[in-house]
């Protein structure tokens, strides 16, 4: 009979964290921030159909980075959670905080008890009813949850991107200004990201009951081309 090697718990956790971080760092990053009308989420994503940013419920959006199959499974679970809750109680009882907690519990559980941690970082964003207190819940692979009110960056390159965004951030900027700053922060000094590799979603009060909408193609291009501080062109809704 062979005896299993003893491995210190610290070492196990460190190995798992490294494994998860490596997986997450392979993909591109994503930024979520507030602007004058709501919440903006910008992801670098060359695919038009495999989304990183999606709708969960009337005022709640989801975004994920890392392994697609893992965060998409979490996204679907979130939709199921929200729809079941909204059906059992009322639409207004569905909130991002409770969903973010459930996600954090699950990610933490998997991180400590399963062989392989989930190689994802996710964002649960919520549009505030009064338009002043939007929420961005950033949940890491180990279940760590951070509640942001201004902006948050997910992915391997989070640190430098967050530093770049910190310089330009303004809570009252327009959609165009916010988008340009997010794209510049994502790209960094050496790269310019075009509309064809951007995925953009917003939660905005003007969209009716379901506040989530995607900004696609030409609408992204015209927002990017808009002069800073200039007029705001009509945004085409997907």
């Amino acid at each position, binding site marked *: 009979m062979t005896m299993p090697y003893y491995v210190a718990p610290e070492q196990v956790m460190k190995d798992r964290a490294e494994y998860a971080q490596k997986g997450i760092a392979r993909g591109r990053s994503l930024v979520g921030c507030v602007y004058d009308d709501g919440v903006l989420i910008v992801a670098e994503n060359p695919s038009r*159909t495999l*989304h990183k940013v*999606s*709708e*969960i419920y009337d005022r709640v959006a989801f975004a994920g980075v890392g392994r697609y199959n893992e965060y998409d*499974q*979490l996204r*679907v*679970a*979130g*939709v*199921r*959670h929200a*729809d*079941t*809750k*909204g*059906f*059992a109680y009322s639409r207004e009882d569905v909130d991002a905080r*409770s969903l973010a907690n*459930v*996600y954090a*519990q*699950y990610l933490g559980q998997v991180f400590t008890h399963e062989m392989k941690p989930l190689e994802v970082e996710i964002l649960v964003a919520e549009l505030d009813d009064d338009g002043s207190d939007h929420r961005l819940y950033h949940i890491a692979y180990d279940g760590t949850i951070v509640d942001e009110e201004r902006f948050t960056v997910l992915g391997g390159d989070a640190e430098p991107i967050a530093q770049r965004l910190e310089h330009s951030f303004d809570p009252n900027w327009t959609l165009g200004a916010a988008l340009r700053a997010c794209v510049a922060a994502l790209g960094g000094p050496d790269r310019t990201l075009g509309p064809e590799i951007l995925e953009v979603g917003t939660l905005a009060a003007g969209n009716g009951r*379901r506040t989530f909408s995607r900004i696609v193609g030409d609408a992204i291009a015209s927002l990017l081309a808009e002069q800073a501080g200039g007029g705001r062109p009509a945004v085409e809704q997907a």
Partner: protein
Amino acid sequence: MSLPLFPPTEDPGPSFVAVLGRVDPLAAGRLGAAVGASPVGTVVAPLSVPHGTTIAALRYSDGVVVAGDRRATEGVSIAHRGIEKVFPADRFSAVAIAGAAGPAIEIVRLFQTQLEHYEKVEGAVLSLEGKANQLAQMIRSNLPMAMQGLAVIPLFAGWDRRRGVGRIFTYDLTGGRYEETDFHATGSGGRDAKTTIKLGFRDAMSRDQAVQLAVESLYQAADEDAATGGPDPVRGIYPIVATVDKGGFDRLADLEVAGHFAAVLERRGGPQRPGGRQAGDGHAIDDEAALGGEQS
């Protein structure tokens, strides 16, 4: 509430009903998903619960009109004067209900949630036919309840974005789904409403003409059927009329519906007197003025 995650081999897919069955079997059972829970075949006297009455739908040149009166009856009493029977199913379709109000409203809620759930999980909107079939399954699963007197008969209408036409679907108790080419009405006053539409229907009507015909059909149904409510200017309650076209679902404001009622009455030569005699001579002008005053 835990995170509803399922192993890939047992995933319920984009079906909200299936998810509900796994997460909250009690709620699903209440909706009749557990078929066989109640004895099929024992027909009992209708329970004394609110019943919704007349609903109608018709096609016009670029969409469909769906309308329903506001009365719910419980036996021979009026249970509600302002109940709503026409709902948006999603952005491009409407569902109207007749029958036992409780289960009907629950089915509508489930149907609305299901359409949105599918759209979010799949990232694509169901085809209009797909939506119509989903509703058929829900009506089918209500059969045990229907056998106990709690029947729900919906009308489903919407804008088919792939074909670019408005389409109307009708149902029977067993979930049978039938497509109507032009119009349909159901509920206790459905026969009168349908006859009115049949007489006034023309191909390629404008939106206004179609709305007016729908309003007139409800007026005639209310005239003949005790369980159908007519326009109620005293309380400011008017039937719900909605249109679905390529711009999506749009519910008409009460004021606009009231205007159409006034137009219907005017076209018929003012308010009718008992015995079928028309208000004639010099009195007609006074009567119309009085009516206009009430409705403004």
